[in-house]
Structures are given as structure tokens and as C-alpha cells.
């Protein structure tokens, strides 16, 4: 049984049809690349799965259960987490504080319920070790590199034991070294049995980590191929429309 099943999803915003009858599925522990040109419907797809708004037609099935998400928190309850492009981290807090933001561990009884800082730092350190990231729990996010920030954002999804992590352009605007770090993080997630949907413009990154590539063009799915049966040239053709279908 697929972890995520997207069944003939369509989404219209007024007269604009952002997505029409898209089907695909994601297996547990699978890394799927979602590619397409600007306006192809990638972000709309991510927002539908993440629960930002419901689809106009079709259904999203998570672990065999038909879901009607209206708010991100509902999708999160089903084990779907999004790592946003702007990463949604508070710069003035430390790595551990960001990982636990909104889910702080507390101890004691009211009105003396205080933060259990050591427990949070220890748990965050464990998560970073698990991801083989050299991020330290007490470092301020403000002073971190792009790769380390990704590690913090990903550690947050590990904290909630997400089954599916959606990553929106995680390798845009970071250095080559950090890209390697982020791709390694994605492999770590896969090794833990977590499914990842990678939304990216960067062909080499998608080919480096993804098992399968889905291409959207003008709101429709035009390809769904295993990475080892395709090539960057073919995918580029599919994205631009030089190749109609595959």
C-alpha cells in the first residue's frame, strides 16, 4: 500500500486551472522528485498535500485513509511535514529552540511549569547525530550556514516522526558544499524509512537522490519515470514541452 496516493486531483482558482487530474503515489521510504517550470503547478501540489487548501476535485489518500485537509495542522497529524523554502526558522533562537518551537518539553506543575532545557538540548543533539549533521543544539540559527539551517528544519520533521517530508527548493541559494550536505540529509531520511518529495529546479540534485521523477507541465502530469530509466536531457525536454509525453 502506498504511503501517499494522489487520485485525479484538480485545483482551480476562479477561472485558472492550476492542476488538472493529476495522479501519482509515493511509497514508504521513497524519494520522489517533483519537477516543472514556473507555473507548472508544483507549489499548488505541495500546498494541497500539506493541507493549505483542499483540492477542487479528486482525493488525497494517506496510508489508505481518504483525507480532507483544510489546515496544515491536519496534514501534520497524518505525518506530513513541509520544509519550506524560507525554512520558517527564528533567527534569534538556537537550533534546539527552533526544533522544539511550539512543542517545548516542560516539567513541573502549573504555575511552575518550566522548560526542560536539558531534555530538549539532548534530544536535538540526538536528532542531529542521527542526521549526521554537525549542527550543535546551542548554536544560534542566525550564525548558521544554509546547510545547517536545512538540518534544523529537517530535525524538526524528525521530532514529530513524519512519514512524508515535502521539501520546497531546499538546495536553491546555498553553496555547493552545503548542497552536498542537504542531499546527504535526504538520504538519511530515506534510510529511516521516511518518504521525501523533493521540489527542485536543480537537475543534478534531483538525479542524485531521487528514485523517481514526476514532471508537471501546465497543471498536468506529463511523466512519472524511475530515475535510472531517464536522463536529464529527457526531463528537460519534458519540462519545456519539447517532448510532449513520456
Amino acid at each position, binding site marked *: 500500500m502506498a504511503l501517499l496516493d494522489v487520485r485525479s486531483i484538480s485545483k482551480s482558482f476562479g477561472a485558472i486551472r492550476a492542476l488538472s487530474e493529476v495522479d501519482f503515489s509515493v511509497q514508504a521510504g521513497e524519494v520522489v522528485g517533483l519537477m516543472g517550470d514556473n507555473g507548472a503547478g508544483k507549489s499548488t501540489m505541495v500546498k494541497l498535500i500539506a493541507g493549505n487548501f483542499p483540492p477542487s476535485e479528486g482525493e488525497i489518500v494517506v496510508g489508505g485513509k481518504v483525507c480532507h485537509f483544510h489546515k496544515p495542522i491536519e496534514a501534520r497529524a497524518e505525518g506530513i511535514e513541509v520544509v519550506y523554502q524560507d525554512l520558517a526558522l527564528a*533567527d534569534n533562537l538556537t537550533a534546539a529552540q527552533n526544533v522544539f518551537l511550539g512543542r517545548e518539553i516542560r516539567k513541573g506543575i502549573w504555575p511552575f511549569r518550566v522548560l526542560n532545557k536539558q531534555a530538549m538540548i539532548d534530544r536535538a543533539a540526538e536528532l542531529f547525530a542521527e542526521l549526521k549533521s554537525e549542527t550543535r543544539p546551542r548554536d544560534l540559527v542566525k550564525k548558521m550556514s544554509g546547510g545547517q539551517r536545512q538540518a534544523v528544519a529537517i530535525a524538526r520533521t524528525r521530532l514529530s516522526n513524519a512519514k512524508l517530508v515535502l521539501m520546497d527548493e531546499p538546495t536553491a541559494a546555498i553553496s555547493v558544499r552545503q548542497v552536498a550536505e542537504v542531499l*546527504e540529509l535526504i538520504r538519511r531520511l530515506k534510510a529511516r524509512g521516511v518518504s521525501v518529495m523533493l521540489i527542485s529546479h536543480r537537475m543534478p540534485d534531483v538525479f542524485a537522490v531521487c528514485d523517481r521523477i514526476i514532471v508537471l507541465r501546465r497543471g498536468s502530469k506529463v511523466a512519472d519515470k524511475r530515475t535510472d530509466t531517464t536522463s536529464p536531457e529527457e526531463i528537460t525536454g519534458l519540462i519545456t514541452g519539447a517532448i510532449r509525453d513520456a
Partner: protein
Amino acid sequence: MTPSQPMSQAMPAAELREQDHAAIADIVGIKEQTLFQRFLASQAFWVAIALFVLVVFMTWLEPSFGTSSNVTNITRNFAPIAIMGLGMTVVLITGGIDLSVGSVMGLVAIVAGLLLTWHQPWYVAFGAGLLAGLACGAFNGFFVAYVGMPSFVVTLGMLSIARSLAVVLSGNQMLYQFGADAPIVKAIGQAKWPLREPAGWAPAWMPEFSSHFWVMVVLALIVGFWFNFTAWARHLFAIGGNENAARMTGVPVDWIKFQAYVFSAFTASIASLLLLGYSGSAINAMGTGYELRVIAGTVIGGASLMGGYGTAFGAVIGAAFLEVIRNALLMAGIDSNWQGAFVGGFIILAVLLGMQTSGRSLRGMLEGMFTGKHK
């Protein structure tokens, strides 16, 4: 090796680590901060040092500065500013500002004063004053947090509204003919501890600290504890750092921002009631211009006007610093009309320094001005 090459399990851990990547500290030069280093990096610490130097210098220059009675005066004078500074710090951390605190003081004093002149018991009068203050805070908080208006606009409006209400309610009269509870009200505002002989045990060198000072100490300790050990404060700081991030992780952003404005008004109310008790009279002009002193104090103490930074200690030390400067100028025989210029100058200076501590250097700011970029 290429960084993306899969790691061999056979490699010894240490070697693997070295090959995989060098320690991050070596590359980017970030070290985990110890508590002491964090202390050294904080603006409040350096202001405290400056304050200490100033006090030593003034005591040497003007022996009457260091007398215990002058210390009593100074600590009483800055306590209301510091108390409000604690509330202001909470608002500043969210990235907002509260310009209405001075006017709220006036309104609270008049409401409490009116009830006292109507021969109500002191606790009824104080309770009503507090409620009036909290209502102002709730008004501010509602429009900022739930309607989404800029805090500058809403609290500027409240600055005018609360002052006007105070003038109308008082009939533009000074209220001083308090009922039977007048002695209790005065006792609250004028109490001192520890007392000297014959009433108490304190030796002559020890200043008799006012009730204002002790209220400030207790509130500062509570707020300091709150900032460091509660999830509420963690969320408060997160809102100042990245409001969207806080919202996306499920932090009740609007509710916390609302509470911040109510707390600021609460501290203004407490300060107002203490001053009411001290003077034994209520005037509608109480607190005029205090918003500037409060903001100056908190910003000098290291709170950032851009949000995300601030400490309870900073609020107190900043207020103390301003008052010592003011007192020193008086003792040096400088015209007291110069004080406004000094307060204003310190605000600008402190913000300039604060920009560097909050990660935006002066140079970066200037570059940003020319390239039109923020950050």
C-alpha cells in the same frame, strides 16, 4: 573524495568523520557560547559597567552624589521607569512598540484618584485604576494582534485617547482630597525598607529603599524568570525573530501579542498607582513624556526595536542609567531643560549600538540603504 559519495561502514568513526567534513567550527568560526561569553556579548552588561564607572566618577566628583539619601532618591526615581520598561521590553520583543504607557499612567491615576475622592476604599480605587489600564492594553492588543494594525499607529492613538479621557474625567482638576483611606494610599507609595533607627535597624550608610524600588525588584525577578524558563517567553521571542515561522509551528501568535500589550499596560498601571501614593494626589498630566524615557531605557538596556531581543535586567539597568545621567546633570548644575536632548540622543545612540548586536552591522545598514535591500 566527493562529498556525496556514500560512506563506507568499514571506516573507523574518527577517520570517517574527518573525511566526511571538517568540524564546522573550523570553517565558519562559530563556537558554542558559554554563559560568560553570552554575558560579555550583551549590551546590558556593558551598560552596567558604564553605569558603575559613572557612579564611581560622580561620587568622586560630587560627594553628595554617593550619599545614602541620594541613592534612595535615584532608586525611587528610576523604579517606575524600569517597571514600565519591563512591560515595554515584552512588547518590543514581539517587534511592536507601546507609545501609550505615559497616557495610560495619567488615566489610571485619575480613575483611582476619583474613586478615592468619592471615599471608596483604597483597594476598590486601585482595582478600578488597574482595570482602566488593562482595558487600554486590551484595546491596543486587540487592534495590533487581531486586526493586524501597526502597533505604532494604535498606541499613538491610545496615547491621545487615554490622556484626553484623563483630562475629561478629572475635569482638569488636581485630585487630592482623598477619603478615609488616604493614609493607606500614601503609605503604599511612601513606604521604605529597611528603615533607620529609631524606627528600624538599618545602619546610617544603608539607603532606605522605597516601595517603588522593591516592586521593581520583584517584578524584574519574575519577568527574568519568565523570560528564561517558560514556553510562553520562548514563543514571544520566536514571534520577534520570525512571526511566520512561529505561526507555522502552531504558536498562538495573536494571543501572545495581545497579552504583551496588556502586560505593558499593567506595568504602567502599577507605576502610576505607586506615584499616586507617593505624591498623595492625582494629576491628569502624570506620565507625560514617560513613553520616551521608557523606550530609551529599554533600548539602552539592549532591547531591539526590530524585535526578538530584550532582557529584564536590561530594562532595569537602562532605566537606572538614564536616571543617573539625569541626576548627575542636575548635580553638575546643568539646566534641567537639557535632559530631553540627552534622552533623545541616547535613544539614537542605543539603537545604533543595538543594530550591531542584532546581527545588522552599521556597514550592512548603509549598504542596504544604497542597494534598497533589507538584511
